[in-house]
């Protein structure tokens, strides 16, 4: 198994997004030490690791929130550079943060198109920021996104986000990520604060994302959720890759062992 380290080999589907040799330092802390990571379209790649393993840092690097000190990005095997969130979203890389980052004072439609609001045609003499909003178009798009992900419990796209449940908010955040022509969707602990029924709703949504040919990166501590939705599982430890497995080839206990102790050769972490 250890020869599969860092790579998955010929059984893996061709990657949509691939990064190699990612290094990230915060002052004296070497948070990522040459991490390789990939995800294909139509698959759910779980990213696991203990606290401080570098999951969140890797995700922020992928989303452009942090700039990698070293490392290459490939999109469909073409080299690209991601230095800020705009680069990432231009490439279709979207992130749903754990805190969701929704504006509770705005309604669902406004949240879904925040930052990319449609404006009415005409008004060429005004800067884009001051052209009239096309709020009907906004609602139509919001309704489409909600319907695509089958968020059935949501009554109206004109409801304020402040009044929604945790599962509905998660759904809105995911819909926002997907709605912006995202091909890669990263979810950070999406079920951490949810009850049973709402967790089910979110997991169903993740599966629908896979079925609609998105590349999904799923960060979680919850082994049951991971083994339900993930196709492959990538384990990080101390800022380095431990290994990547297909779900069928591994058990939850082995994953936990890899997260906490690494593979049996402890020296492998020095990389």
């Amino acid at each position, binding site marked *: 198994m250890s020869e599969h380290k860092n790579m998955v080999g010929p059984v893996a589907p061709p990657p949509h997004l691939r990064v190699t040799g990612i290094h990230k330092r915060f002052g004296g802390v070497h948070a990522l030490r040459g991490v390789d990571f990939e995800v294909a379209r139509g698959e759910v790649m779980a990213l696991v690791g203990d606290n401080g393993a570098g999951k969140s840092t890797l995700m922020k690097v992928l989303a452009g929130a942090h700039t990698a000190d070293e490392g290459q990005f490939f999109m469909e095997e073409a080299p690209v550079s991601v230095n800020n969130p705009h680069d990432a979203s231009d490439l279709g890389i979207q992130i749903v943060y754990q*805190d969701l980052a929704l*504006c509770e004072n705005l309604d669902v439609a406004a949240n879904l198109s*925040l930052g990319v609001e449609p404006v009415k045609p005409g008004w060429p003499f005004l800067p884009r920021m001051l052209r009239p909003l096309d709020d*009907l178009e906004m609602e139509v798009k919001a309704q489409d996104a909600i319907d695509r992900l089958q968020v059935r419990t949501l009554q109206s796209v004109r409801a304020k986000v402040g009044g929604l449940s945790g599962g509905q908010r998660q759904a809105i955040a995911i819909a926002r990520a997907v709605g912006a022509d995202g091909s890669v969707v990263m979810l950070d602990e999406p079920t951490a604060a949810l009850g049973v029924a709402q967790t089910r709703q979110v997991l169903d949504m993740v599966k629908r994302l896979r079925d609609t040919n998105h590349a999904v990166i799923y960060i979680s501590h919850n082994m049951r959720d991971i083994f339900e939705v993930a196709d492959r599982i990538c384990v990080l430890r101390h800022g380095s890759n431990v290994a990547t497995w297909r779900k069928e080839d591994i058990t939850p206990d082995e994953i936990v062992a890899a997260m906490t102790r690494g593979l049996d050769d402890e020296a492998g972490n020095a990389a």
Partner: protein
Amino acid sequence: MQPEHKLSFIDRLRIMRETRFGAFVPVLLALAAIWAYFGLAVPLWEYWGDADAESIRFIFLSPRNIYNLFMQSAVIATLAVGITVVLLLGDIDLSAAATAGVCAALLGVLVLAGVPSPIACLIVMAVGIIMGTAQGLLVAYIGIPSFVVTLAGLLGFQGLMQKILPTGNLNVGDPFIRGFARVLLPDALGWALAITCIVVFAWLNLRKQTQRKARGLELDTNTAVGGQIAFFGALVLATVATLNAYRSVPLLIVLLMVITVLVGWVTTSTPYGRSIFSVGGNPESARRVGINVKRIRVSAFAIVGLMAAIGGIFGASRFGSVSYTAFAGGSLLLESIGAAVIGGTSLFGGRGSVWNAILGALVIGSLGNGLDLSGASAADKLMFSGAILLLAVAIDAVSRSGTSER
């Protein structure tokens, strides 16, 4: 109509506040209560209490007083509209009245020095924008809390105003500047304007409703749409009728309305306004979707600077003079912040509307006017204003939807 599950009064209030027109209701109720007290209760009390009185005199509700009330509230309202924009971001501007004072003083000096008054107005507006922008830069890029920056601005600009006006007073007799407050629209033009406004409002609402239907979106009930139009129409017609009954619609009020429509439109119906609301609601969220939070902050302070300058011009026009106490040194600042907050704009950012600020200014103005008429002392006025402000913020806190946030 009994709902399935029992709603408490506060729940109803919350639901109501979420709707677009519902946000007006608390401040309208406050206004109605104040008008009923000063307009009806006080005269009736005096009539019954005084055997010699020959007839009831409704001084407060007389067209003449309402006209004065509008004019008195206009400067407060202008500043309150600007302050609302900053409050929407969750910031505050304590320097607005001092900025207005500096701008008014500068205007007076420029006109005295022979600068043509329209150009002087433009210069003063530019100066207001620069003063606001400078404070915004300190808030956004240096990271000093807006409270501190604008407190420093308040002190500094008060001093600056005294420097510009060593005597503390300057008469402004320029006909162009006096014209804002003096020019009255002919009665017929006032009516025409009112009817045009109502027709446009109705047309916009009905067109939106048709478009919603065409696109298969959920519809507002016809009662709601009709009610909005009827309410708006009644309000506009009543205002024009009252103003015409004394003199007629003053240019100042029309200008104030035009500015408010413009600011209101920018804050609610453009991507820029949407980003103001999102920065006020959740700055982190705004940053992540690529909104330049710092630039939005600076621009909001620029807007409040511009509005303060306009307020200064309006004030100079209305009083016919520029004095230290009328602007920087007086109660204008607290009245305009109070107006914005009484209107229901949250001090925590993300919720509020410039239209509510206008109504809030009317509440503050009515209170001062009514207490003046009933012979209350300045001390009474201050205490009443404090109580009303507290009441307004309490209504805001109770009716804020969601319990966990902030």
